[in-house]
């Protein structure tokens, strides 16, 4: 069973890791619906 297809996905990206928008593109490619995407910054 797939983890992402058809699911509502919440994205918490990281400025110094993988930013939210990059994860969005991946999640959408897996058939997930992105309902929220944000990028955090610790510096």
């Amino acid at each position, binding site marked *: 069973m797939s983890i992402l297809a058809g699911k509502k996905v919440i994205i918490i990206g990281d400025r*110094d890791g993988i930013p*939210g*928008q990059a994860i969005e593109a991946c999640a959408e490619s897996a058939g997930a619906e992105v309902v929220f995407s944000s990028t955090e910054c610790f510096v």
Partner: protein
Amino acid sequence: MKSVIKGAGYILVHTPDMVLHNGTTQTTERIVNPDGEYLKELPKHIRTFEQALSYWPNQVYIGNKTPDELAAVEQPWCDKVCDVNDRYGHFGQIMPQEEFLLLMQACDVFGLVKLEKGFVEAHKAALAANPIIDETIMARIPAEQTDAAEIQRLVDEEHSEGLYHNGELVGCVNRAHDIDVNLSAHVIHENIVSKASSVTALLSAVKNAGIAKEDVEYVVDCAEEACGDMNQRGGGNFAKSAAEIAGLANATGSDARGFCAAPAHAMIEAAALVASGAYKTVVVTAGGCTAKLGMNGKDHVKKGLPIMEDMIGGFAVVVTQDDGVSPEINLDMLGRHTVGTGSAPQAVISSLVTNPLDKHGLKITDIDKYSPEMQNPDITKPAGAGDVPLANYKMIAALAVKRGELQKADLASFPAKHGLTGWAPTQGHIPSGVPYIGFAREDIMAGKLNRVMIIGKGSLFLGRMTNLFDGVSFVIQANTGAEEAQAGVSEEEVKGMIAKAMRDFAATLMAQAE
């Protein structure tokens, strides 16, 4: 026309009491968790001024130690004592809190900063003795100061923001308007701290560059605060406000904003203003940020570490017309993260690093040193943000491998060879590429380096106006000597080409002879 880096100033202010009272991690905690363990534990982790002085990264920031020397010291650094603990360095200084509170008052032109009489008496001489502070600044400190009881009343009844030293209330910053939130005591406090630290940086940079104050025609402030009232929240202009206190009588200026990328934007703007002939001397400046004090304090306290985010940072760089010796800013080699670049880390690094190099047929390894985000890993690693400069170097190296410009086996040695170990406090815009400009200038002039790339990156999405990231980069290179009258191949380049052709020819002959 060319523009050159004439000098730079780097300053820190040790503000332990502001960590407790003004850092947003602490002010937030006071609202959501006032009786929590963190606020109880925190005061035990505050450093003394002497500890801040003998902290390795701080001594690098003001120029008493080099990034290479720091890289040779085993991490963590917070438990090591630097063998140099001067408060003055050849780039600037580390100012103690008590002097800074007086300087804040000198920078207040609206009668909002109140200090207790005895406190002023005790510390006025120390500020006057500071080599960059002259009598025009001392004259801005009012003769009439305030009683302790009145300060207490202002804090209790008038929403004033307290100024503390060694845990004692020694002054306050009043609100500048009863209703306007943009002129609240909190905002005014934050802005005066930014302004006063910018003034300190400006004075250091002008002194280090060996120019007269009258020479400065334009100042660009690239900090992350906003000043204005309720009808123009970000009206500005920190640049001119700081220039006034610093005595730069012939300067006007403006503020450039762009989160942590702003210093790199401002440097390019300054270089372009000079290169175009609009102004002969432009200074880029920024003060520091109270909000970020103790930003990662929870992690530091949890791990039994001292609060290392107790320093307000500031820097200023003087950009002038060509003097024939100072390193140049190459405006023909700019990196730009554009709206269309996207946020994929490889796309970001390509836009900032390889796009400008490709334009000139250069390889990643043709840049001697990269200065991206120079955050001190001693602060960021325990907070879960990793080693930010190192991550940048790994990305640049990975890109070089992908492009076939670096052997995979050399991946691990790339950061040491083309990179630096971070030493700047996590004051947002302060670490962003610019802390290295002072060292880069010296190393390029000493012939140790030829080309250095400064990279600024900014988290625009934090402002909630866009989801985009941002960044720009520029290259500082050795002065190429007398300017050519027209564009085209310079004499130097022709000489270089001839020399290379002769070397190649000789090599061929020798190979044949063997």
